């Protein structure tokens, strides 16, 4: 069964600091997504990672994928308050009976001035 874990679940960090959020999954996956959700809002797509070694960057966020380790990371560089949100990874696996996408529980990030 495909399970997705995120670490940490809660993160409080100071502005200007760097940190990494980890996303582990239990079985082979076809691709991995990262999303951002602001409180009370909908989800916004950040990255789609398609293959082993994939790295994508947007502003202060950089995501990478290691399919052999079944691990994706979301690295935050020089955090700013605007990055405060909950970040979800989601793993997709194609099955014969139905396509399956499993979300992690989310990492709630709070950036403190």
């Amino acid at each position, binding site marked *: 069964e495909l399970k997705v874990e995120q670490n940490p679940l809660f993160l409080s960090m100071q502005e200007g600091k760097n940190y990494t959020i980890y996303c582990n999954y239990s079985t082979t996956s076809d691709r991995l997504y990262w999303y951002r959700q602001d409180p009370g809002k909908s989800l916004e797509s950040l990255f789609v990672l398609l293959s082993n070694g994939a790295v994508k960057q947007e502003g202060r966020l950089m995501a990478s994928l290691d399919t052999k380790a079944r691990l994706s990371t979301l690295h935050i560089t020089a955090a700013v308050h605007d990055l405060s949100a909950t970040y979800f990874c989601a793993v997709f696996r194609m099955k014969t009976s*139905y*396509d*399956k996408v499993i*979300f992690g529980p989310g990492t709630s990030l709070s950036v403190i001035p």
Partner: protein
Amino acid sequence: IAGITQAPTSQILAAGRRMTLRCTQDMRHNAMYWYRQDLGLGLRLIHYSNTAGTTGKGEVPDGYSVSRANTDDFPLTLASAVPSQTSVYFCASSLKGLAGTNEQFFGPGTRLTVL
């Protein structure tokens, strides 16, 4: 309409009642999805549709049904609501299905409370 709209924004419903959550997109995306979001559980896929006229079951389909009569609309029906269906429901769409490489766009959500 720009993007994905959902209706209603929120609803309080008595257990046993029938309820349809509406979702409309104007991006001409082929695929649409319904998720529920519960605290501590992230999002879970209920049903999906890779193209108009087809639907598929996700991770938690029991108690829900969907239809996809056309490209734009993807309603989610709770035939007989139960308190465990209290959740925030998000509709999403993508140009192609989950097997494609494209990102999903999410609607604003419907907060449903079943008493």
